[in-house]
């Protein structure tokens, strides 16, 4: 039996043109050249918002979410094509513009893309298929139950009638949308779970214009911004005369990103809402003239504001002052030594620690991180009167629309937005202040503009991964049994704690506390927010606990999970012990893990986040005093894997990204000034530090897809720390692990 699903989404109602405007007309993909059917259709028939069928059977699928490297522009259309049952070679993929009524929440982030679209996109395909079947039945005057639809062909066996989808599309598009449709079962998939090549790969390797940065338009000017050199400063005044006198410069203006009293959303984060903008004919000319700006800055005053975020309204306090990393560190150490806010308590941890024979206590810390997407922030805007055309390489278009409308003083409905490919996102492009800035600049200079951040502007603008600290304590009895676990974690300015995640639920006496330190340095989501620190701290600590108990690192974790499954402690544990166990067992098998293996320096780490499970075994050796990652074996349970090779690529990337940030990732501050502004100072992982081999495995099951982009990332930090210990004999507690100073020893 297929799954029955009812149409809830108005977007499946047919009718209306899909695209208003497309500034990316020059960005046509190379896909058409690769199609089985060489000619483009003369006429298209729109079946619903997600797909249209040409008279020759070519199908165009509109992929709803913006792309920044997950390859969802391939995997999302695969879901539609699977249920439509069409030859993948006859599918063209187009990027849908922002359109909430047609495409719902077009959010790429939180590893939610595929899981959120799993049913709606399959529904779109299945609905169209059912309408094609109904059209054939009507045309042939046969019962629709007897009509089959497969690989783009409709057939009626008894009468031997046959027609391509293209021949029936004109009739099908006029039919009433069915109220319920049958979806395929996982076992019947023909396209999904089979690797398909990236539909954009040809365009990428031939340098076609795809990205926000590549947009050109008639009469378009280039704009750049000048923001304060330090957090805690704001604009006082600007003298733009010398800059304006430079060749090719049109104007110097100031902009204010928010109307007074505007209630911000959770993604309106912006350390520098008042900016100087310089506008000219070409990027190089604007870059040169920008150096001639004479800007005076002044200190901000402390303020509080209410933000309407995903979790409801919250008030945040922004202190005045120029902050430094040294101060943050002493503040964090001071708070770590005091009682925090107790978030969870099971059993009687105080008594367990009092009665302990031995106590193991370790503290872990990590610095701020900059996202450093390869494509610096940019946006195109053309505001004319009360209308705005925007092309925004951003992760959550719908959440910035109200701000743009408010700041420009135009109705929301008058904003059209295209969603070009992003050259990386990793959370940073969820915060679309730069789109508001582009729109305001366009409005002020009354011209189409492309706002381009320099690398330096991008790296020093804020919205970083916060700086974190965690202290773990474990109590052991006289037989070296683990009797209690205590975690106290905090950060500048948010806590990384997930109180209900493993090993909560597996230990009788458990306590989790947290604390925070206010800051005017802006922070935001960075691939697996909070998890990207907690996983490393927790998994490094558990490694040391296992060692203290004389247990094998994997078996120790499996024993805890067994306890959590058979006799869980506490009311609420956020993870599924079976799936957690599954990835640990798979990675143990695939890495040929042996207890006390003296031939390798191996670290294991596993973590649950974004509804998925990932475990790594990382082999490392020291060469000329530097760590070399020889091999990483990875096991992931993210449910059904839609496009296995693309998912493998993403896991490889997450592993490499994690190693890079564990080794080198760090942004420090002196008197509010970020101490790195480009790649000569900010060390990124390069090919020579990448693992020599990565071996990715997926748990095979039929669970609806859960997250994939983020889950393999957090556990990397723990695997690196644990392997470094095996290779060097020293535990690593403070990220980044490779610095000029010798590693700290606990």
């Amino acid at each position, binding site marked *: 039996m297929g799954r029955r699903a009812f149409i809830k989404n108005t977007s499946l109602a047919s009718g209306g043109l899909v695209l208003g405007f497309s500034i990316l007309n020059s960005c046509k993909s190379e896909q058409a050249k690769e199609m089985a059917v060489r000619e483009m259709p003369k006429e298209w028939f729109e079946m619903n918002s997600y797909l249209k069928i040409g008279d020759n059977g070519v199908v165009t699928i509109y992929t709803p979410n913006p792309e920044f490297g997950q390859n969802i522009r391939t995997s999302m259309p695969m879901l539609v094509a699977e249920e439509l049952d069409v030859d993948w070679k006859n599918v063209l993929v187009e990027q849908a513009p922002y359109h909430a009524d047609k495409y719902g929440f077009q959010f790429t982030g939180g590893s939610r893309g595929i899981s959120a679209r799993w049913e709606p996109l399959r529904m779109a395909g299945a609905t169209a298929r059912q309408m094609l079947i109904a059209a054939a039945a009507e045309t042939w005057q046969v019962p629709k139950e007897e009509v089959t639809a497969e690989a783009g062909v409709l057939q009626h066996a008894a009468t031997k009638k046959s027609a391509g989808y293209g021949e029936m599309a004109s009739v099908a598009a006029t039919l009433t949308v069915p109220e319920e449709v049958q979806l395929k079962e996982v076992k019947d998939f023909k396209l999904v779970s089979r690797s398909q090549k990236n539909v954009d790969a040809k365009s990428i390797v031939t340098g076609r214009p795809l990205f926000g940065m590549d947009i050109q338009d008639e009469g378009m000017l280039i704009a750049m911004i000048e923001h304060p050199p330090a957090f805690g400063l704001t604009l006082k005044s600007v003298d733009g005369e010398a800059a304006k006198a430079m060749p090719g410069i049109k104007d110097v203006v100031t902009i204010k990103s928010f109307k007074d009293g505007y209630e911000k959303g959770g993604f309106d984060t912006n350390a520098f809402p008042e900016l100087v903008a310089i506008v000219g004919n070409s990027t190089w000319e604007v870059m040169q003239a920008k150096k001639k700006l004479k800007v005076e800055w002044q200190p901000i005053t402390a303020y509080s504001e209410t933000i309407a975020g995903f979790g409801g309204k919250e008030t945040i306090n922004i202190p005045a002052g120029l902050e430094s990393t040294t101060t943050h560190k002493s503040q964090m150490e001071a708070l770590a030594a005091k009682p925090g806010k107790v978030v969870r308590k099971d059993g009687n941890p105080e008594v367990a620690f009092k009665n302990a024979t031995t106590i193991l206590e370790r503290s872990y810390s990590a610095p701020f991180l900059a996202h450093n997407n390869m494509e610096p922030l940019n946006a195109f805007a053309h505001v004319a009167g009360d209308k705005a055309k925007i092309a925004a390489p951003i992760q959550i278009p719908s959440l910035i629309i109200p701000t743009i409308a408010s700041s420009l003083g135009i109705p929301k409905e008058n904003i059209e937005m295209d969603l070009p490919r992003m050259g990386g996102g990793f959370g940073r492009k969820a915060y679309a202040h730069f789109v508001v800035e582009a729109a305001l600049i366009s409005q002020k200079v009354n011209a189409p503009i492309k706002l381009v951040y320099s690398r330096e502007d991008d790296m020093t603008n804020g919205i970083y991964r916060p700086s974190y600290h965690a202290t773990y304590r474990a109590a052991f009895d006289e037989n070296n049994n683990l009797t209690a676990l205590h975690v106290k974690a905090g950060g500048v300015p948010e806590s990384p704690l997930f109180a209900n995640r493993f090993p909560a639920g597996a230990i009788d006496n458990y306590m989790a506390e947290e604390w925070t330190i206010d800051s005017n340095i802006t922070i935001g989501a960075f691939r697996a927010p909070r998890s990207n620190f907690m996983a490393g701290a927790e998994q490094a600590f558990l490694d040391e606990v296992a060692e203290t108990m004389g247990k094998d690192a994997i078996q120790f974790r499996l024993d805890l999970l067994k306890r959590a499954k058979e006799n869980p402690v506490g009311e609420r544990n956020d993870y599924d012990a079976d799936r957690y166990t599954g990835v640990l067992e798979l990675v143990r098998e695939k890495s040929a893990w042996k207890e006390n293996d003296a031939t390798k320096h191996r670290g294991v780490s596993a973590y649950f986040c974004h509804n998925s499970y990932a475990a790594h075994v990382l082999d490392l050796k020291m060469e000329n005093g530097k760590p070399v990652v020889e091999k990483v074996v990875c096991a992931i349970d993210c449910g059904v894997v839609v496009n296995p090779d693309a998912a493998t690529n993403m896991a490889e990337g997450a592993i490499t990204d994690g190693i890079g940030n564990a080794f080198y990732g760090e942004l420090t501050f002196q008197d509010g000034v970020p101490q790195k502004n480009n790649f000569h100072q900010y060390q990124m992982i390069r090919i020579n530090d*990448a693992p020599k081999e990565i071996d990715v495995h997926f748990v095979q099951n039929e669970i609806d897809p859960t997250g994939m982009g983020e889950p393999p990332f957090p556990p990397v930090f723990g695997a690196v720390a644990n392997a470094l210990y095996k290779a060097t004999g020293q535990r690593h507690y403070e990220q980044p692990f490779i610095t000029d100073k010798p590693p700290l020893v606990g």
Partner: protein
Amino acid sequence: MAIFNLNINGETKEVDVDPATPMLWVLRDHINLVGTKYGCGIAQCGACTVHLGDNAVRSCQLPVSAVGKQKITTIEGLSEHGDHPVQKAWLEIDVPQCGYCQAGQIMSASALLKRTPNPSDEEIESAMNGNICRCGTYTRIKKAIKTAASSENV
């Protein structure tokens, strides 16, 4: 401003720009060849890599006035139909994630194979170390370079 006649992808292009303008911006803003990417502007990331003659160079550090009659090849001109062995290998291995750095990676890799048709791992790492991939596709890049090296007519 000054007029320059440049040999780009086998065609002569005339531009009237400040002589100090880096080729990166001449290509992107004046000739509308946007495959060459801006990443850092200081020759640290490799996204802007083009060929000057047979050599991979960072176009963000190459003033237009220094080019003269030397041939410049960009990603758009690497092959007529996107079928250079390195491009084919990139497709076979399905290297890209976000894709922003990949033109630069391909230009560095194709210059490497021209001078070293069968590079060792160390030679690949040394030649490609100037190209950052934030998505972390390095293991596939290495695999694709080896695939291209083992194909004919590099």
